[in-house]
């Protein structure tokens, strides 16, 4: 696939159809890949990579990139296309300035996920069928791919691209993902247990803002938490609940717009399962307003920004255990 992508990029750069290419760049090791914009054939040949470690969602970069001169070729994975569509719907990406080439994804892992499985001192990784064979300073280790993928890929919602100008590889399908299993488990907790669960998880937060900054739904020019004049800008929490509030407010703000790409949980240095907050909202929206997947299209009105006479009545919310 990598060769096909480089060939496609060269072709479009060569014909002048695009003047830049958004993709992934190799690093020091096999897994430390950085999103990058390529402008020449030499750069592509030297550094362009597409492998099992290209997990970064590239769509958010297109907010800025699509405002630069000329057209950019963007290689998007199925996940990324949901974010791309959602950003189009929010008028954040200029569609005419992007040529989208859909690329297949069989799940992306990363160094941290492999290390959590007990791998130390990674020197190289090769994929053999359904396994990763990891060459380490301390010998070779084989891991089944299914065990070495992060949660977001194990509960992948779709291998189908929601938008593209051209597709490389076969068209995938929307999957039955079981992605709400953990949400259901948390729903079954008593309120006290649930409170303890989240207090425990969120207590590890160091407010690095990585979750917010990577999130394609967090595209405000100036976040309220960075705005001195807002009166709620936080660099330090006044008490232990304030840290929690940041995440809860963020989850509310992206509700109905979060496509569940899972970048928040991927980047969290403290392994906080932030995606579960968003999934709870997605599940509730599905329940109360009918199935809705953000990023599936660019034209429909989202349940939370629309009024419909059939909208859920408060009595139904009460019936689901909501408070009067």
């Amino acid at each position, binding site marked *: 696939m990598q060769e096909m992508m480089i060939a496609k990029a060269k072709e479009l750069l060569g014909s002048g159809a695009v003047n830049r290419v958004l993709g992934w760049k190799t690093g020091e090791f096999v897994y*430390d890949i950085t999103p*990058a914009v390529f402008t020449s054939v030499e750069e592509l040949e030297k550094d362009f990579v597409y492998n099992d470690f290209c997990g970064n969602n590239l769509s958010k970069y297109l907010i800025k990139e699509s405002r630069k001169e000329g057209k950019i070729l963007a290689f998007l994975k199925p996940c990324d296309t949901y974010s791309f569509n959602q950003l189009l719907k929010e008028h954040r990406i200029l569609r005419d300035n992007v040529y989208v080439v859909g690329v297949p994804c069989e799940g992306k892992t990363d160094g941290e996920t492999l*290390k959590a499985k007990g791998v130390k001192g990674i020197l190289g990784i090769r994929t053999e069928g359904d396994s990763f064979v990891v060459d380490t300073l301390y010998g070779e280790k084989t891991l089944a791919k299914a065990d070495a993928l992060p949660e977001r890929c194990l509960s992948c919602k779709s291998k189908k691209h929601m938008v593209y100008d051209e597709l490389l590889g076969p068209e995938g399908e929307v999957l039955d993902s079981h992605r709400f299993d953990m949400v259901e488990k948390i729903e079954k907790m008593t309120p006290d247990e649930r409170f303890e669960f989240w207090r425990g998880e969120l207590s590890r937060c160091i*407010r690095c803002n*990585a979750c917010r900054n*990577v999130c394609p739904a967090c595209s405000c020019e100036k976040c309220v938490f960075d705005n001195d004049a807002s009166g709620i800008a936080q660099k330090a929490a006044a008490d232990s609940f304030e840290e929690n509030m940041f995440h809860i407010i963020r989850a509310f703000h992206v509700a109905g717009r979060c496509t569940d790409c899972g970048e928040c949980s991927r980047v969290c240095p403290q392994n906080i399962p932030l995606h579960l907050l968003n999934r709870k909202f997605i599940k509730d929206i599905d329940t109360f307003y009918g199935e809705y997947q953000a990023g599936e299209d660019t034209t429909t009105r989202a349940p939370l920004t629309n009024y419909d006479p059939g909208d859920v009545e408060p009595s139904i919310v009460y019936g689901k255990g909501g408070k009067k």
Partner: protein
Amino acid sequence: MRKLPIDQLSALFQAIAEKEALYIPADDSSGQARFQRWHEGMEMTQALNTVRSAKDFFFPQTENLVDFKLKGKEIEVIDPRTEHEDFVVFGVRGCDARSFTILDKVFLAEPVDTYYKSRREHGTIVSLACTHPEETCFCSTFGIDPAAPEGDARGWIEGDSLYLEALTEKGEKFLAAVADKTSECGDEAVRAQQEKTRDIAKKLPLHELNLTGFNGENMLKLFDSKKWGELSQACLGCGTCTFVCPTCQCYDIRDFNTGSGITRFRCWDSCMYSDFTKMASGNPRLTQLERFRQRFMHKLVYFPANNEGEYGCVGCGRCLAKCPISMNIVKVAKALAEEVR
């Protein structure tokens, strides 16, 4: 050198904890290691290092500096500090142990930061030699020997024993306090382990990272490099690298209105943030490129230029492991190397 059977480790921790607060690296509920106050039953982590560094002990993420209480037209100024308890941090790796030397240069230089100093005086560092360094490690670039870490005392776990050795007066005191748990021994086992670890260290992929030319003389050449654009291109502007870094020491001081007065606190800040060093005229670094450049110029050029060549990095590799876009000091140093050689 003293030793103790490893199955007596809990008894050792118990003995320390009876006298003063003890912190060890232990796994948290997410399966990652962090320094935690030891209690009975808590086990040391198998991980090489903690996610957050050990700097937190001396330079916590937030702390109150002074309280102001208003009574009519009177303002009472209150020092909120209470006497620190003595504490031991056990299991600090060589990289973090060196980071204290770097932090000392900032906080103990005139005017001395008394908040930091007081914690330093009350803390005893017992470091622990590495045996299984990771590919992200590059402490040797800074002359750190992972097999012989610095600290007040240091230890090696080899076979079924923990070996301990004092390096400072505080370390002597620490060893004396647990003398009844340990016995005098030779250092053959430790030396054999060190040799093995040093062999592994030589095979690390970043072993030969070379920082020649990163100094004050090349400051402008490095500052003006065209490479910064490409290097900072994908940076998210988050603070992950700065917050997991054992040597990042920038902070902000702010006032919190309590309703009946003011609490003045300081908290970690990140040069990657858009409001870092914001002043009346705004932020002097308007773009992410400038903020990104500041972080690496500080560590690789400004700090050594002002501190006899000591870099503001210890090669712990945390930023390599944790950056959401995998951009880090190693990639920056390699990309800029050609500018100065």
